[in-house]
């Protein structure tokens, strides 16, 4: 019984200790990583970033989607004109 409680307390101390330890290390590692990256590979301040963000989804869909869209837009136009 007492052993169980002791084990529980041990788990708590070790657990919270480790969680903090790990995340504190991660804070430093992350900060260091960011500083390194932004120092050695500074982001080129072009307009591209915006398009880069959009790339993942748009690139995957692009070819056929654009075809379908332009067809749809045409259709839409034509309907309106008729």
């Amino acid at each position, binding site marked *: *019984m*007492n052993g*169980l*409680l002791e*084990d*529980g*307390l*041990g*788990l*708590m101390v*070790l*657990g*919270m200790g*480790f*969680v*903090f*330890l*790990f*995340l*504190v*290390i*991660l*804070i430093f*590692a*992350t*900060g260091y*990583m*960011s500083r390194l*990256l*932004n120092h050695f*590979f500074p*982001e080129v301040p072009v307009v591209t*970033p915006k398009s*880069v963000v959009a*790339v*993942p*989804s748009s*690139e*995957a869909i692009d070819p056929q989607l654009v075809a379908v869209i332009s067809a749809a837009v045409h259709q839409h136009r034509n309907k309106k004109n008729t």
Partner: protein
Amino acid sequence: MEKKLLNLFHDTGIYQLEFGQFVMICVGLLLVYLAIKKGFEPLLLLPIGIGAVLVNIPGAGFMDAPVYDSVGHLVTPGGLQYYIYHGGIETGLFPLIIFMGVGAMTDFGPMLANPKTLLLGAAAQFGIFATVIGAVLLGASGIMDFTLADAAAIGIIGGADGPTAIFVASRLAPDLLGAIAVAAYSYMALVPLIQPPIMRALTTKEERSIKMVQLRVVSKKEKIVFPVVVTLLVAMFLPSAAPLLGMFCFGNLMRECGVVDRLSDTAQNALINIVTVFLGLGVGSKLSSEAFLNLETLGILSLGLIAFSIGTATGILMAKLLNRFSVDAINPLIGAAGVSAVPMAARVANKVGLEANKHNFLLMHAMGPNVAGVIGSAVAAGVMLSYVGG
């Protein structure tokens, strides 16, 4: 033929249904109701609820083991949930695949812009370990029959992260898996009810009104390197957390690297959806009357609620502490998002913040501790698996 008719009658549910099964079917229906009508994490609780209904139909054999003859030929095939549970949950495959998909859906940008928020994600894990002590006390005092492994699995409810809870429970306390998963997802759905009173009690209106400086822009490169850094730190310091965090970071890397969008897209959609359906049915299979209808379940539900509340409180308190030492002001409300429950807890922080100051948008600031909480509870899970298992 009269005998066959009698057989058929003996096969019916009416004849065979035990009271415990009846109650568990009602529990399953309640989960379905909460999922559909109340919007309680329906993606999980609907399949779990249906899984609970199906596994408790007497004679339907959803959990029957297959029977083989002496030379290994199949005589009677097993039930659907038997294969799902033993193939995907007991092995840990399903929670890990879901964690990969969640990683592919997670944006670490806000956290990278303000890494200090990782401390909030650490503090909020205190709910986990406080709950372990609670469960241990109930066990040690003889009120309930909890071992250390059970206590650890119950505590993880406070991690507010479904796949982590299922992964840990399937390894440390498979019998409690059903109750633990239900508690975890239910309380995640109840975050908008559970957290606000605690947030208001522990903060002044001035604190809740604190505006935070706008987050810096995080470069694509940082987002790509970050999951690799996490994986390597896990490898160095806590290999027992590597299955969870390794798959999580793998999913995140697929998302951010920009060269495997078709894999990332599948991980976030078709694959995670398929696994979610089966995970739900498999978790539901553990909602049997023997495992669920007892005092322990009551303990699990109570302790889970306590875990959430303590995690919320310690997250806020840590934020208040940080605020004292920080150059840039920190709104303590975002500490509550450290429990995980992505993105619900961040939204709650935002909402409570708006009540105090209607021009104060905390959502992006709260996303930092929110995703930090996911890492935090996976680390806690790793410690538990290493401490209890080793």
